[in-house]
């Protein structure tokens, strides 16, 4: 009898919770970031989370979960309670990749997530050459690649990153043969370009900036107008609009999170970027601050992102089936 009474009470409590629910947010929020600590993506999420903590008057904790190319973090958020207390901080493309490569996988952008806010093209990917080289514009690259197929070596990132995929897109669009040489990331591609071991390097504009200022490197093309290097023309302007995998930084909530909660979060994120100190800080570092929160906008973005990534095979995306 006692146990029954107890279970009834528990049931009643569980059922009634929403009725007496405290206004959102009433406890700390966990922002699971699918990158390692210290990098550009992590940094941006940390800065915004810190500002959100002040505005929401509740702790917004960044938890790094980069394991399994981000799949483990995404899976965790996808399976969490739909109450807005667990969010995913990731590159939109990183999650879209999981869909394309493994549609039935445990984390699926369209099935499991609802975008809260997206920082559109937050940083540009830049193609670099040395200032003492013959590659000033894309035209030079394409011309020489036609003349000497396979001989131009371009330093790219790990398989599946935009540094690598954009070279693949350029190869397809310009029908050229250049040899991508994969490195661990921007710092390594730049190092090898400075040392003359590769002819071109793909990197983030922010990482490239000090070397362009130092006069050793120059920008050949960018995928989106760069806030720090406005003089470098985009791939689109140089005749290759197909090279367009922009890096969108996304705050995602599990699908089914109440609209009111999503709105509170989205409004807060918008407010954080209006803070003059944070805004100045991010601008100085070269981030584009084009924040999108309208539902219609975000849905189009997700659709576009899915289309962009479905141009690649799972193999090219770094999710080769075993």
């Amino acid at each position, binding site marked *: 009898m006692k146990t029954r009474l107890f279970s009834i009470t528990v049931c009643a409590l569980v059922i009634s919770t929403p009725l007496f629910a405290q206004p959102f947010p009433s406890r700390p929020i966990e922002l699971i970031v699918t990158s*390692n*600590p*210290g*990098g*550009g993506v*992590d*940094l941006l999420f*940390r*800065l915004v989370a*810190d500002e959100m903590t002040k505005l929401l008057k509740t702790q917004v904790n*960044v*938890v*790094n*979960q*980069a*394991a*399994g*190319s981000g*799949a*483990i973090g995404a899976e965790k958020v996808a399976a969490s309670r739909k109450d807005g207390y667990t969010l995913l901080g990731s590159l939109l493309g990183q999650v879209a990749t999981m869909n394309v490569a493994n549609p039935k996988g445990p984390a699926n952008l369209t099935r499991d997530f609802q975008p809260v806010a997206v920082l559109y093209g937050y940083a540009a990917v830049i193609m670099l050459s040395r200032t003492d080289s013959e590659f000033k514009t894309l035209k030079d690259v394409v011309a020489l690649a036609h003349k000497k197929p*396979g001989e131009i*070596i371009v330093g790219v990132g*790990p*398989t*599946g990153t935009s540094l690598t995929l954009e070279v693949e897109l350029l190869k397809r669009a310009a029908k050229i043969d250049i*040899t991508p*040489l*994969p*490195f*661990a990331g921007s*710092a*390594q591609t*730049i*190092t*090898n370009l*400075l*040392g*003359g*071991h*590769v002819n071109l390097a793909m990197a983030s504009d*922010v990482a490239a*900036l*000090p*070397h362009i*200022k*130092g006069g*050793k490197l120059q920008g050949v093309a960018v995928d989106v107008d760069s806030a720090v290097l406005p003089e470098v023309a985009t791939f689109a302007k140089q005749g290759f609009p197909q090279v367009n995998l922009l890096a969108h930084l996304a705050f995602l909530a599990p699908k089914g999170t109440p609209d009111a909660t999503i709105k509170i979060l989205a409004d807060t994120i918008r407010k954080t970027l209006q803070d003059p100190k944070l805004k100045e*800080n991010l601008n*100085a*570092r070269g981030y584009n601050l084009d924040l999108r929160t309208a539902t219609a906008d975000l849905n189009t973005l997700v659709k576009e992102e899915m289309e962009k990534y479905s141009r690649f095979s799972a*193999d090219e*995306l*770094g*999710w*080769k089936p*075993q």
Partner: protein
Amino acid sequence: MPNCRAVFSSRFCERQPLETLNFLFQGTLAAAAPVNLLYGFAGVLLGTLVGVLPGLGPAGAIALLLPLALHAPPLAYLIMLFGITYGAQYGGSTTSILVNIPGEASSVITCLDGYAMARQGRAGPALGIAAFGSFIGGTLAIFGLAFLAPALAELGLHFGPPEYAALMLFGLTALVYLAHGPMDKALLMALFGSLLASVGLDPLTGTPRFTFGILILRDGVGLTPVVIGLFGVSEVLLNLEAKTGEVFQNKVRGLLPTLQDWKDSAAPIARGTLLGFFIGAIPGLNVVIATFASYAIEKKISKHPEKFGTGAIEGVAGPETANNAASCSGWIPLLSLGLPTGSVTSLIFGALMIHGLAPGPLFIKNSPEVFWGLLGSMVIGNAMLLILNLPLIGLWIRVLRLPYFFLFPLIILFGIIGTYTVSGNVGEVVITIIFGLVGFLMKKFAYEPAPMVLGLVIGPLLETAIRRSLIMSRGSFAVFVNRPIAAAFMILALFMLLSPLLTRRRLGQEIIEKLEEN
């Protein structure tokens, strides 16, 4: 950021040797400001702690402290982060020597002779020489950094994939000197190590290798969990079996190195400093390699190589000096070119970015107060660490008197907390435990773990370097011999391999005898 000329008078901006010293002095003064001293002390203390605790490394500690970046004064905060990195090199040797469990991967090699010394009751001198060696290597490397940073950074750029490949082959020859059991077993272990390192996504094509569909294995088998398992957990298992109440029966003799110890260690410390400094300055080589190289060289040129592995103080002094020198010169690519080379430097890069101090080729010129302040703080920090570590020796030795049922569960606990904290990943804990069992079996069947760690560290570097080189050369192996630096290392590697067989003396004799015995 203010220009150099705006901060200092113009003649400071084109440096002469005396002015470099003057800068370093000014930086030291800046670092001696109370708030900087406080943060610096917190950093080195934390670093020592992180070093002592197996599992948790400087990268993990810095990652945990990143949120503080937004609220702390910039220079003081950076001084603290730097303090953690070199403090960890001081602390790492402690558990290697006392209980045969490296606190950091860079102290793996210290286990060989450090632990043997401790078993003979000479834990005090081993810890002492590690602290003094660290101090000397660390401090001299700061001067090297001050004078040579830009030049060395340029030199580092000459290392492309073929040069790395040749350098790694050279590094593999160290294997000959690491083994003190049968050579075939050591080779087998090195191969096993490199095979393990190939688990995860293929670094060039992204193809999963040996992952068996397990998501965690996509990221590969990390160095930290393997080392903790192989050395830490297995040591505890062995001790459980031994059923002795105490770790050591031998009486502890002396707390500090004797005059003879100093005589034996002086040259290894000098060589360790040089070797560590130059290896550390090459982007992408980690501190672990510097320690293996130092050990190999000390054993090669020693008059009594047979004593290595049985408590030779040179085997502690050299590597422990080298890891501090390497951890200091490891800043060169970051500070003079803005190129982060590993997880720790990437994190510091992030911390500098938070404060709007993007490091790049103009960093020293544009932010002299930060660069010289950091260098100055390292001078002070190294002195603090020496003062901190010498009195601790007495304390650490007392730890050995703790009954093992108390000490060892603690070690396992800290090891597991450490591996978990860094990645937040239960998979790493599982890997730690599995390698505890593997390490236990290895010790039972007399296979040595050190060659395996060498394979684990060098394997992936060698593989990516060879494959990148061959992509560059479109399949031609000539790329390894027609580039001067690569060719030089190839010749050195050949020399290291052949010299013992040709000369038939010293170590050569020993190896040949061993081979004949088999």
